[in-house]
């Protein structure tokens, strides 16, 4: 049993390393946490670095597992988890949970049917994306195959995100951060807390 766990861990490590390489090639920054608590500290550190006073987070099991409300209480930035259409436009950081990560392209996949997940990942200049480490797949085709089994249940809004928003429309010079976030910070969580998915 133990040997098997180690093997799984080894595979996860390989996939994680490969994902990190490809996602960083498209200007995302990738980190990994052992559990939700460590992830919460990493998110807090990002928020501190950004100097954010206002943070929005979508209601999702992965985000809930971090327990940010309790961690930040009065000392931290204001955290808004509802009324996102009003709060997301002037928040500095948005936090959301994503469903899959694709090694091949450094991409995250999200069932973005709930509008909250879209608003927090689009409007603030920094997007913090939480993903479970065991949800890394090798290729785009494998990721799409996950949805082909139940085509009737395709999410109305399925989003694929590879790095921050970018453009090369002026003289083909790559510029990061147009309409979407200019920073994408991805945190993998090996063992999300009990409340998790």
């Amino acid at each position, binding site marked *: 049993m133990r040997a098997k766990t180690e093997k799984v861990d080894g595979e996860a490590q390989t996939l994680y390393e490969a994902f990190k390489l490809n996602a960083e090639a498209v200007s995302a920054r990738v980190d990994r946490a052992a559990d939700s608590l460590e992830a919460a500290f990493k998110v807090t550190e990002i928020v501190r670095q950004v100097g954010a006073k206002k943070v929005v987070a979508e209601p999702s099991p992965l985000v809930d597992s971090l327990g940010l409300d309790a961690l930040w209480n009065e000392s931290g930035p204001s955290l808004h988890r509802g009324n996102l259409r009003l709060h997301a436009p002037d928040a500095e950081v948005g936090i959301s949970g994503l469903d899959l990560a694709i090694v091949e392209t450094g991409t995250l996949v999200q069932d973005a049917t709930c509008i909250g997940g879209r608003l927090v990942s689009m409007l603030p200049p920094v997007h913090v994306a939480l993903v479970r480490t065991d949800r890394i797949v090798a290729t785009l085709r494998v990721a799409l195959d996950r949805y082909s089994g139940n085509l009737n249940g*395709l*999410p109305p809004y399925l989003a694929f995100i590879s790095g921050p928003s970018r453009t090369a429309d002026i003289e083909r010079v790559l510029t990061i951060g147009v309409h979407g976030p200019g920073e994408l910070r991805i945190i993998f969580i090996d063992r999300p807390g009990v409340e998790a998915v």
Partner: protein
Amino acid sequence: MSGTTIKGDIQAALTNESLRRALGRFADAYLDSREAAYQKKDFSALREEIAALKSQAAGRMEELAGQFADEATRHGAIVFRAETAGQAREYILNLAREQGIKTIVKSKSMASEEIHLNKCLAEAGMDVVETDLGEWIIQLCGQRPSHMVLPAIHMTRGEVAGVFSRETREDLPPDIPRLVKVARENLRQKFLKAEMGITGANIAVAETGTLVMVTNEGNGRLTTTLPPLHVAIVGLEKLVARFSDVAPILEALPRSATSQQLTSYVTMLTGPAPAVDAFNTPVQKEMHIVLLDNGRTEMQRDYVFKEALQCIRCASCLNVCPVFQLVGGHVFGHVYTGGIGTILTAFFNGMENAAEIQTLCLGCERCKDFCPAKINLPRLISKLRTRVTREKGLPLTQRLVLKNVLTNRQLFHALLRAVSAAQKPFVKEGTMRHLPFFLAGQAGVKNLPAIAKEPLRDRFKKNGGREAERNALRTGLFAGCLSDFIYPEIGTSMVKVLEHVGFEVVFPQGQTCCGYPARQLGAPEVMADVARQNLEAFESAGVDYILTPCPTCTHSLKNVYPELLAGDSALQVRAAAMAGKVCDFAEFVYHQGKGGLVQKPEFKPLNKKVTYHDSCHLKRSLGITVEPRELLKMVGADLVEMSFSDRCCGFGGSYSIKYHELSAHILDQKLACIQETGADLVAVECPGCLMQLRKGLADRGQGAPEAKFLAEILADQL
């Protein structure tokens, strides 16, 4: 559009230094970055997959449109089938009016450009804002996109700063990150207030009613999320049958379009997703999908042009086009530009609109290698040319020449000989200032070669057939007009090499022009006529192989004749038999030598630095790149590769006369690559390229390398 207008536009584009620099830099960088993006993919397998799924979808377009509409409706979308651009505009305008819409944001959609939607909505008093950075720039200056992926590629940062300064009433510096930030801030306000969002789509999946959008800036996501009303305009060619068809297109589109593994955002919409209003109150999202026909069904019913529906709009055919690279998109006069744009314009705007722009194609066939949907664009443009010619007719002199002269070999050759005599006063050191050649007659063309005093065919007659060695295989030389009448030394060099290694060489006197120029001018029936004459000439000569020094002739004999004569089954069989014997000279010599079938040639070593130019038809129609280089190494040449060795030299037959300035610019780029290598010699295996390169190198004067035909280089070392 009249001919003088397009020539005026070309002239203006050629004198626009910043445009040429921008396009040139892009074209150079594109090749490497695209290759890097495909590094871990098998491009040829991928494009087979896409061509198959898209051509099947095109074949079932109507059925898939119905299925898509049913599925999307089932998921809560409202689908409208628009037969014409007018119907699509009217539907969207009415919808906006009914709901009292005042502010609209749009993400990039070529279909909306195609139906000129902005103008119609703006005239109705609505505030319509393009939110894709490039589209916003051109909207602010009232232009058309010049490129379907990079709409404002023709503009510099300085020009953009000017446009944004006017818009924001600020004095903005030409600093790109700053300009992008200005766009973000200005457009963010528009997004938050917009009542309606308009998008296009890259793929529409019939099986699930899903729309797939491929974007980078994030404006597509905002447009589909913030306003509670979403309208998507989707051309029928975007339909695919299955959800599994999405993956191959997503693998190719970003790689070919922007050299990305995947764009920053890919969004898949299956029916409306939940929405909230500006006060975060949940509201019912409305999703309208306008399925646009506007000429696509007509295209689908056309057995030739149906192929163009396979296009996934990556614009790689624009990015590798030597003509686009010089003049940009606006010269094309319509929304869709470049090679594929020419075909789309013919169907979406009417054939008459493509009549002039189709002549911009040089026929270098480079785009064919890059198309991720495997569209044979050069073939489609050539077919378009035939149709335009059929409708418009050729100019009288050309028609007379083609129909009465080219099909009558004795008359054609007699005329060429007469020219040889008449040109004497004009000839200076083998080239002439003014070519009294009936196909020419344009000012500014200089350093054209003279017609040879003694054509190749006469040299054969004089020497008689040499006594063939016992058991020697017999090769027949198909000279082609340029080697026969202008560069007979190419032919004599080939004979020298072939006889040296032990072949018999004959020259069937009944041979004439291969006919390819006639087809290029839109008269395939003239080519079919001369094809029959050439067939007879070579059948009666009883040859084992047919060798030509000209890749266009080789391509004609080998690939075009069987297709051209397919209407007559007996002729087709004969054409196929002849095609089987046709071989390029370098390919033949190299492989015969390697196979040990002939004696090994003994060459005196050539102690020169040589660079090799890949002729368009030799590389792309015949796939020959290795053999000429190997032969050069065999003669001991110090082979140095030039950059972009397979980029066209700008000759393109009569193209260099019709668009001589464009041709001269393409030639200049080629010459710069050649001279950069410091080679003494540039080797070519196409008489057209030889003519073009010699013309250019003569202008460069002393110290410029010499252009020489491969067969000549070999023969000189025997």
